[in-house]
């Protein structure tokens, strides 16, 4: 799936993968790729500013985790982030239900019989 198609959904994807618990940037990237089965073509370097933006608007918070000699930043959901994720999920389900109903309509029972007679 191309990068352009993902653009409007990146925030929801990032919030969803940190929902189970705190993760650092590379683990977030790996989690998105694993959950998508490698189907999402993300420029993974652009994930880091997106994480910074989500932290700035209060959907994520971060702290430093010591790893051997160096430190790395771990991100986790805030309460506002959990609410936002729930809204994104709900909006996505509504969107796919409506578009799915148009693109792939369920057969109307008896319609074929009616047309033949």
């Amino acid at each position, binding site marked *: 799936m191309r990068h352009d198609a993902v653009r409007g959904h990146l925030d929801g994807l990032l919030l969803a993968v940190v929902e189970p618990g705190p993760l650092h940037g*590379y683990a977030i990237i790996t989690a998105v790729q694993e959950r998508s089965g490698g189907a999402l073509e993300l*420029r993974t370097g652009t994930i*880091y*500013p997106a994480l*910074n933006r989500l932290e700035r608007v209060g959907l994520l918070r971060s702290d430093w985790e010591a790893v051997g000699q160096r430190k790395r930043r771990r991100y986790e959901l805030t309460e506002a982030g959990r609410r936002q994720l729930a809204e994104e999920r709900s909006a996505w389900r509504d969107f796919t239900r409506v578009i799915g109903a148009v693109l792939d309509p369920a057969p109307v029972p008896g319609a074929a019989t009616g047309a033949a007679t």
Partner: protein
Amino acid sequence: MAPPPPLDDPVERYAVELAAALRGPAGARERLVVEVRDGLAETVAAYEAAGVPAERAVREAVAEFGSVAEVAASCQRELTVAQARHTARALALTGPFLVACWWLVRGTGDGQGGVSGFAQQVAVQLSSAAAVAVVLAALALAATGAWGRWLPVATERLPAAVAWTGTAASVAMAVTTLTLATAAFLAEQWPLTVLAGALAAASHAVVAGSARVCRECARLSSREPAVA
């Protein structure tokens, strides 16, 4: 002091090129570059662990990560907002000082040998402008903070607005400094006027520098195509 990183290391070279392409608050910029560098290093290590030869591992990792230009464009948008917040904070902190200074000086000048009538007129105009700048700065901080969840369009346009508000305020602060320096010769209570002038000069130095970087950031962000 730590030795400089070896530039024959492609990951370090990537980080150095990225840092050179970015403008914004030093702390936020360094944090982003360190995160990107560590992430790229981990990506290279993951390829190598999967048996990919070192040189190809770097090429694959950079292809997956995005070129320096692509990643810089995304980072710059965030740093531009960070710089706008920095400038807005500087305005929000120094503006009230300026208003207070002017009203203090005005209060000592009414027909008691204080500041001249011209200085008092300037005081009214500039303290009003400073008050407006403070309100705009507070709104900018809110819009790029928690309100940013609901105002994504505003955060695209705000940095330039903050940059030019900061520039206008810094000019007002420079005029204030000159006016107060002149008024100090005429005022009976000259120590107060000198103190107010020194505060205005310090405010000008802080706000003008931050607003200049903010203008650079806004210009860089407006040039870059959106990639994320």
